[in-house]
């Protein structure tokens, strides 16, 4: 691993750093040991982040969807599981769901945990592809790792990991386009895969458009070349309508956000002071901006527009902080590189191969480790399953929202009153659920409407207490912070 960054001729790059041509006198050579040590440290950090039990609330219903599709389910239509749903369920994350379910069928839960670990390794590699283009190995690794920390809130075993990888690829490709003004047509089929994997596909298209508009503002494009470059994001948008879900996929992000922005925590606006990931991301952006404002050169619009996009997505909602971190990664790397007062050296093929080997080794090592660590899920009350199994099939369960995915997966014979796919329920219905959960006036109306005979609730919740004290529900079992109750 000693040659991740070794001596090479300077990049054939028109960009200069602080007016100096790349590779001129005064260039400080990076020791080959330091990049190797930092690379291995990064790989170890990735393994640490990636190997843990399956514990994301959403992972379970994604497995359920994968199973549903592999057994002949339709990509869109009335919801097959929840009778209280009033809106159709659009399967806009079908590809990773199918892959994860197949992995689960073959190898059990460790396969899901391993897939997450691999996705994190790939995300870091994609980030490094962005940052290494504008910085030497060490600053590139540091900023890629910082960006990965910025995405830490979204590194669960969910399809959104695919979005983060794709976005990093889009950012890296758009950056290269900004330098050579050549379109990257391969982004179009890539976006098709993205659109089949997760709903954040539009962020990549947005990045592509922003860069083209920024280049136009910088007067680096003719009308013809601008139109040609714009064809890439527009073509990508068009292929999003060609997934098995059909053209309705284009509207899916808005449909999801209708309910989610109001009721789902990760869709709430980012409270920066209490969000470490947001702080990390803003520090990355601030580093880039500070470099720009203290520089005697004008910052090009395309870079400014990327920085603005990073700030907006970081502050918009917790869900999009990782988007901000990914967009900010090359900006911060570029700023860090400018402290060296030299242009970055282009990575050689050998160092790329070594990195690929290192990642491959990590992925292989992760197999036996996840098999040990991830046999049992985390954050779910597995010990209550025996009690839940006694409930008659078709019983309606007044459930804690966070457990609905697990309930759908583990106890498919039961019916949750509300599940994590908030977008398939009406706003009034979600309001009524919340009123019930908070035991506010009229809370019993929701019970009258849904007629639950069982409840699976947090033991310390007001609604658990109210059901017991006022309606005399019977607690059957309490474990791992949750209680199962039965109606009298």
């Amino acid at each position: 691993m000693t040659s991740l960054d070794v001596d090479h001729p300077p990049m054939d790059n028109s960009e200069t750093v602080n007016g100096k041509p790349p590779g001129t006198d005064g260039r400080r050579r990076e020791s080959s040991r330091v990049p190797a040590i930092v690379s291995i440290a990064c790989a170890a950090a990735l393994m640490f982040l990636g190997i843990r039990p399956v514990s994301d609330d959403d992972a379970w219903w994604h497995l359920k969807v994968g199973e549903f599709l592999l057994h002949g389910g339709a990509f869109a239509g009335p919801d097959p599981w929840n009778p209280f749903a009033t809106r159709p369920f659009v399967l806009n994350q079908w590809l990773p769901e199918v892959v994860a379910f197949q992995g689960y069928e073959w190898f059990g839960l460790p396969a899901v945990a391993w897939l997450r670990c691999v996705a994190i390794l790939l995300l870091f590699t994609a980030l490094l592809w962005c940052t290494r283009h504008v910085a030497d190995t060490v600053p590139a690794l540091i900023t890629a790792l910082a960006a990965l920390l910025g995405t830490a809130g979204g590194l669960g075993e969910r399809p959104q990991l695919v979005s983060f990888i794709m976005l990093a690829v889009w950012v890296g490709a758009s950056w290269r386009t900004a330098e050579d003004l050549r379109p990257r047509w391969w982004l179009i089929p890539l976006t098709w895969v993205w659109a089949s994997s997760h709903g954040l596909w539009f962020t990549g298209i947005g990045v592509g458009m922003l860069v083209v508009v920024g280049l136009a503002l910088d007067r680096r494009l003719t009308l013809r070349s601008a139109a040609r470059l714009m064809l890439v994001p527009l073509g990508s948008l068009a292929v999003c309508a060609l997934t098995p879900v059909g053209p309705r996929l284009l509207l899916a992000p808005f449909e999801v956000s209708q309910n989610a922005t109001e009721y789902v925590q990760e869709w709430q606006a980012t409270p920066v002071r209490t969000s470490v990931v947001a702080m990390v991301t803003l520090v990355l952006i601030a580093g880039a901006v500070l470099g720009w404002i203290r520089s005697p050169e004008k910052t090009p619009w395309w870079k400014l527009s990327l920085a603005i996009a990073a700030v907006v997505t970081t502050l918009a909602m917790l869900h999009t902080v990782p988007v901000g971190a990914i967009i900010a990664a090359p900006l911060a790397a570029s700023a860090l590189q400018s402290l060296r007062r030299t242009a970055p050296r282009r990575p050689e093929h050998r160092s790329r191969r070594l990195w690929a080997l290192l990642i491959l080794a990590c992925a292989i090592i992760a197999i036996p480790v996840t098999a040990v660590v991830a046999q049992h899920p985390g954050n779910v009350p597995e010990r209550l399953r025996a009690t839940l199994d006694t409930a008659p099939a078709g019983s309606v369960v007044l459930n804690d929202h966070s457990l609905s995915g697990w309930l759908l997966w583990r106890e498919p014979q039961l019916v949750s009153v509300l599940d994590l796919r908030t977008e398939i329920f009406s706003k009034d219905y979600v309001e009524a659920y919340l009123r019930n959960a908070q035991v506010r006036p009229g809370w019993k109306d929701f019970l009258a409407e849904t007629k639950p005979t069982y409840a699976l609730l947090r033991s310390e919740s007001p609604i658990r207490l109210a059901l017991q004290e006022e309606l005399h529900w019977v607690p059957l079992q309490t474990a791992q912070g949750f209680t199962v109750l039965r109606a009298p």
Partner: protein
Amino acid sequence: MPILVAVTLNHPRLDSSTPADAEHEVIAHGQGELPSGKSRSGVFVDRVHDRGSLIVSALAVFVVSAATVLGVRPIGDPSPWLHLRIGQYLLAGGRFGYPDPWAPFAAKPYVLTEWLPAIVGYLTYNKFGAPGIAWLRCAGILTLLTALTWTTRRAAGAIAAITAAFVALLGAYDGLTERPQMLSLIFLAITLGAWWRTTEDLRPRWWLVPVTWVWACSHGLWLVGLGVGAVVACGLACDNRMGRRQLRNLLLVPLASLAAAGLTPVGPKLLLAPFTVGSNARDFVGEWQPSTIHQPVTVVTLLMIGFVLIAWARSARSPHWWQVGLLVTSLVCALAMVRTVAVAAVIAAPLLAQELQNLLPMRATRPSRLAQLSWVGLTAVALVVAAPMAGALAQNPNGVPVHLAAQLRQIPSGTRVVATGDVTGWLLWSAPDLKPVEDLRIEVYDPSYVRRYIEAMAAGPAWRGFIQETGATVALLDEDSPLATALRERAGWHAVGSDAGYLLLRRP
């Protein structure tokens, strides 16, 4: 408004804080576009100059009118009632200590960080009622606008300065309530203006020391003024504009101000008050929670900051470190918590003005005495107009159950009341003989007690225990609250009145 015609007449160019080169650049660039005859921007400059006075007059009238309209409205904040009660109590000879005279479950003595406006507020209320408080708020907003303009006008010409001051006022909107924090914003704008002047002549403004003493008697944000001073002084040092001796001289101003804050009637313990209040409030009080971009004021303030940053990034000149320091301070305040967004807007105001000025094709000039008098006259007219407006619009406060006051006063003295946090200030004011189990002075309570209170309000597992332990026999609760529902449905309490969304409940 003919008197306002003189707001921007020709005057000597502003000195160092407004870069002359940048202004020349704007004009020269424009002239380069049309080589023959007069340039397009040159024509525009002439037109703006011709009509400049008119534009400034119209802008000033609009801004002062809008500020007046913003200011004259009924009392709607939950806090002024607490301050009125404190003013009344102090003027009647009362003093706070331990045990607390009002709250049976207070664990610490209450530190009077806002005694001066509390007394002024009470005296005003005593003479003019609720409209008097509304008028005071309006006066505060207009004073803040004037202080902001005094600051921004140093960094820019009249149009940019007034525009930036008004945008900052919008960014500070959530802080423009009938509370002592309005004074903090005014003092902050003045302190900022003073330090901006210091960056020009490097002379210390010693008058900031007594100003900080008054500030420390009025509100707990006096520490921010000291911070601004320290940031500017250190920034000037980073800019290599002065030696150690000068830096020491400048830093003596915030240090002496700190000492002055320790000499108010509250004594040296005032120096620690911001931290003791913050330690409880950060966990439990809404306005101490992190700000988010779902709040319009945060968006306005971040747009101010973003505008300055983009202007700097797109400019060939580098901003001074002291300016960078101020912008970073503003950004941190904007994102830290809801209540500091207003602070951020005030700090960003002169920076915004300066960058707006750089976009305008005309020179920034110093304001004439006539222009200054015109502004004062306009503000005085607005204050006079606000008096009858306040009398008409602000007779009845909003958000408090005034129709329950008579019932509350009939309840035996010393009765313990569990009440929604926001209404406790009004409860202390309208029924001073009752004892709330928790009130707005959150810093006097033990954090574990506050946690139990919050859990009880949510009808969590310990709600019965909390009610029993506190001995509350009366409740004044939001009618949509879980505790009101639990008390009625599960404990048999009955509602004896309701008003403004609040229920008055009594134990059976």
